[in-house]
């Protein structure tokens, strides 16, 4: 499932291939042994790099990073291919099965990374760039498999509610809901002024799944979730409880008309589009949502100053720790056979200069603690504060449990949204999928 989805807002899968202008030499890759690890050798090296920033600001930002690296290491040529997110995931899957995957590839960590490590597709970065890894602190946790780091996260965001301040004010909601009761009271108040309280892109599957991830992180203890991630044992009653909590929300009927067919990001009738165009009051979404919304309004400003953010409310009487939250991020990995300079390039991406520049683009939340101040947007700063103060950030469950179980989970949650699945059905779907891993 997509984490960083700015791109998909605009195009029906237009992928832009950009060739970095540089001295020729084609795409021949010298073997890993011939390239100097720091890139200061004279051996010409070409790195192929796939990323999903196929729209600005990220498209030009990544190009700038590649140019800067090439300026410092003239022997290293970086060939970028910027691909729309969903297309990229499909192509990456195929490329990893082939003998010629991109050298630098997007990595969302968790179970997907574990599968790739198990299949021996990724470069172990632990001893290659120890300084860069330690500078990121706990953020690399999601990119660690069996104690070794295989990916470098450059952005780590958390999910929460993006909302329309003007609508909340109109409905007489002075303070954003901090408890489960206040949350339902807000839904009623918003219904009373005749707007759809919540937009959800259940047509894409994962945005519905997100609701379950949040009720699960509120109902399950961190230990239970962590154990489930490796054992794939979902017998703890808190997984049923999570479904029951979600059912309470669904039974309150807060969602936009036709939400079962609503996409998350494509067009004005997507969930992000509904929020951006004043058709719905809030949406449970990731940190990328403002960027998506901007692209879905005519003035490219989204909701502008009316946009606010608040965290998913805590639910008393459950095993979850207060303040626990669902998050995830974007990183890059090096393919197993990539030139050794690849690891150095990943370290370059997350150095302080680049992380500050990344924070300034507003397209994500820099992982490097030293770059926190670069985030100027007040909503993003609030989100960053919640992330940094949270006692427990659980990786998106579909990523954490791996594609197979994750998709089965999302499908089952969509069925619950459609009124066709019970909390037990959701757990059963995960258990059944776990048997086929």
């Amino acid at each position, binding site marked *: 499932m997509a984490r960083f989805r700015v791109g998909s807002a605009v195009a*029906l899968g237009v992928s832009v291939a950009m060739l970095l202008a540089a001295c020729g030499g084609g795409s021949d890759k010298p073997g890993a042994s011939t390239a100097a690890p720091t890139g200061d050798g004279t051996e010409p090296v070409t790195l192929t790099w796939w990323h999903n920033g196929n729209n600005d600001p990220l498209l030009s930002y990544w190009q700038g990073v590649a140019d800067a690296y090439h300026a410092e290491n003239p022997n290293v040529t970086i060939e970028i291919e910027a691909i729309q997110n969903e297309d990229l995931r*499909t192509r990456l*899957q195929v490329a*990893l*099965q082939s003998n010629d995957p991109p050298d630098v590839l997007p990595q969302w960590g968790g179970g997907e990374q574990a*599968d*790739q490590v*198990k*299949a021996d*597709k990724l470069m172990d970065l632990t001893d290659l760039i120890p300084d860069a890894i330690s500078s990121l602190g706990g953020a690399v946790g999601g990119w660690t498999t069996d104690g070794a780091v295989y990916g470098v996260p450059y952005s780590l965001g958390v999910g929460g509610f993006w909302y329309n301040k003007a609508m909340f004010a109109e409905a007489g909601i002075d303070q954003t809901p901090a408890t489960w009761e206040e949350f339902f009271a807000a839904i009623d108040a918003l219904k009373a002024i005749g707007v759809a309280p919540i937009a959800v892109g*259940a*047509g*894409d*599957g994962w945005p519905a799944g997100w609701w379950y991830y949040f009720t699960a992180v509120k109902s399950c203890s961190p230990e239970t979730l962590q154990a489930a991630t490796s054992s794939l044992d979902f017998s703890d009653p808190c997984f049923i409880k999570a479904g029951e909590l979600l059912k309470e929300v669904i039974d309150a009927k807060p969602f936009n*008309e*036709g*939400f*079962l*067919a*609503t996409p998350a990001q494509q067009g004005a*009738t997507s969930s992000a589009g509904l929020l951006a165009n004043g058709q719905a009051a809030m949406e449970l979404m990731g940190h990328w949502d403002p960027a998506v919304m901007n692209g879905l309004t005519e003035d490219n400003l989204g909701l502008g100053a009316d946009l606010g953010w608040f965290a998913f409310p805590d639910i008393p009487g459950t095993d979850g720790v207060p303040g626990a939250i669902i998050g995830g991020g974007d990183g890059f990995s090096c393919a197993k056979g990539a030139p050794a300079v690849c690891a150095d390039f990943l370290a370059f991406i997350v150095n302080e200069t680049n992380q500050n520049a990344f924070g300034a683009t507003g397209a994500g939340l820099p992982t490097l603690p030293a770059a926190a101040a670069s985030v100027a947007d007040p909503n993003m700063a609030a989100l960053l504060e919640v992330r940094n103060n949270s006692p427990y950030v659980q990786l998106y469950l579909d990523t954490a449990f791996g*594609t*197979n179980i994750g*998709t*089965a989970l999302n*499908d089952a949650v*969509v*069925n619950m*949204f*459609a009124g*066709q699945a019970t909390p037990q059905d959701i757990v059963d779907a995960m258990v059944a*999928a776990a048997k*086929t*891993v």
Partner: protein
Amino acid sequence: MSGVAGAGSQRDAGAVIDPTDAAPVLTQGTADRALARSAVSRRAGRRGPSDWRKRLEIAVLVAPALVLFLIFVVWPIVQAARYSLFRWNGLEPMTNFIGLDNYKEVLGDTVFRNALGHNFTIVVLSLLIQLPLGLGIALLLNRKMRGRTVLRLIIFVPYVIAEVIAAVVWLLLLQPRGPLDAMLEAFHLTGIRQLWLAEPKIVLYTMFGVLTWKYLGFAIILFLAGLQSVPIELSEAAALDGASWWQTQRRITIPLLGPTIRIWAFLSMIGSLQLFDMVWVMTHGGPGRSTETMVTYMISVGFDRNRLGYGTAVAIVLFAISLGMALLYQRFILRRDNIEADSGRKR
């Protein structure tokens, strides 16, 4: 008719039906002559002195196509059959041999069974609705009237539009409070307004409606072509005997159109079983799997969940079902046309 997915499906159909079976319907004379010639030369060449030369000639001419066919069609099928016996996520080496477990799971999975049910619903609805509708319009358009060519053109336009584009257009039209709803409102028909793509109970029928819009033109053009081969003398004679227009159609034209109708039904059936593009673009098999077809199911388990072994098992099952249906149809329904064509050859 639904989902004859462009030239692809027609090619598939052609591979199953001997194209000469269909030919007499459309261009009786020339096809018959060509058949007669080839039949004669085949017989003459069988034990002739130039036998080996003929064989060499055939070998040289057929080899390139045959090699391509083996590499790109037969070999992948063999490989797929092999993959389907493994539990394999596409990344790791394929080592976990599980025999026929994937097949057991496919056939036992309610989602797959429902998908199969959706495919058959489309097959049956196509025959029940598109056939009478297409036939009726074809008969009307076969009459002499002003603007006939323009009408024929208009009715054929949806078929020419690429399936994905048609799907995107309808996706936009069918949004809640979208253009279609606005039109219904303008006609004071708000009562029949629906969540066309979001209500699991009706979305399959929405899909069928769009498929009908898209493929009715193909049925009509096929029927019109068939109608041209119905001798005008027969209806003239019937008219002299005092038959009404309606009687003529029912007793003469439609029976003579039989072979064309049977071919159309065959293409429609195969297309419905392989239905994919339209569904994928408009609903992705949703909401809540209510429009899942066998092919969307195959894609979602194979690529969304990375269960490549299981996905290929689904593909093999789909292949077996399509092949089985095609053979049954050949055996029991198209046989009559085949026999007629054969007797035509001997004449």
